[in-house]
């Protein structure tokens, strides 16, 4: 893979530099996103790739912790046990929400019609197309 990893806002070009810029949030992203193993194999991190493939544990693969005994379900990448980081709410609670059980509770409606999904939606005026008269 001919690219760098962005870790802690710094470009990292070689596996040996990962430890000095250790950024578990971004590393988990690259791992779950499917590129980290390939990148490591192409950039001097064969050993780390092997450990990561074996355990799925980011901290262990880069020598930040001892080898884990077992990986608890849903705890694939050695990330913080607390899970999601607390981030201050930017908006009032939305009318529609996913409950913890995964059931969607209706209430909030998306702006624009269902068809706007096809092109990426979000605008309040999303029920319209634009530039159609050109055809």
């Amino acid at each position, binding site marked *: 893979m001919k690219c760098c990893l962005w870790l802690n*806002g710094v470009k990292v070009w070689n596996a040996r530099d990962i430890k000095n810029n250790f950024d578990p949030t971004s590393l*988990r992203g690259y791992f779950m996103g499917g590129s980290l193993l390939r990148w490591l194999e192409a950039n001097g991190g064969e050993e780390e790739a092997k450990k990561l493939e074996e355990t799925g544990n980011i901290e262990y693969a880069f020598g930040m912790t001892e080898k884990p005994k077992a990986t608890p379900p849903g705890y694939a990448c050695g*990330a913080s046990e607390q899970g999601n980081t607390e981030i201050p709410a930017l*908006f009032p609670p939305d009318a529609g929400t996913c409950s913890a059980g995964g059931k969607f509770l209706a209430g909030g409606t998306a702006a624009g019609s269902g068809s706007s*999904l096809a092109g990426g*939606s*979000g605008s309040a005026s999303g029920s319209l197309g*634009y*530039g159609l008269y*050109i055809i």
Partner: protein
Amino acid sequence: MRAIHVSTLAPRAEKFDLYSTVLSALTWRKYNGEIVHICDKQSAQFYEEFDVWDSVKPIIPDDLEGINPTMFWAAGKLLALRETDSPVVMLDKDFIVWKKLELGDSVVAAHREDLNPGVYPDVSYFQMQTGYRFNPYFNYTALPLNTAFLYLPDEDFKQFYVNMAIEFMKSAHDCSDYLRYMVYAEQRLLALCADFLKHPVETLLDKDRLFEPQADYTHLWGEKQKMRDNPDAEREFNTRCRARIMRDFPGYEHIISIIERIKP
């Protein structure tokens, strides 16, 4: 400039969609260069007779690497981008570019979106698996970017964005919200990543002037639903597309008969 169209899952056989796809591909080739169709096997089979792309690459896995296809109906676009070298333009099949574009070092998206909380809720809304972490250094007020058109000039940035988006999709709990999770992964994370890495961003259109007269871009967008609801509107649109194909792309008139014999 090389562009990609992406198709996953069994495509709907809607004529207006197929005409739009054909015009999007042929018009890109006319003004801007190569376009590749990246798809899964089902889509490759469906579009087998459509010779409107320079090449077809059926490289998207049918199982979308385990991503929920209902919640993340555009996941294939992110998987396709991961496997395509930058610089690259990803073009929705209902987006048509009617002129030659000058693209440089900035990421270019179709337009910004307002942070409407009904569509782009606070991140506390999302139910994620243990281990997923919303990046605490992102500026969550960055306005999302509509990716009906997306130019990614830089491989380093592209890999960061698509990996963070794929991670989000793989880490979300299954639920029946098929809008907010998808647009967070595709549109909002793009803006968040660009802002975080200080990557310059431009847009083709100003979000507050989308519906002013212009002759450079067509985006069907919500018109699709209108055509589903109104057969006369669809007939009129299809007629105009056929005329456009015959006038501008006479070597591709055979596509019309292919589309017309496809049964919905």
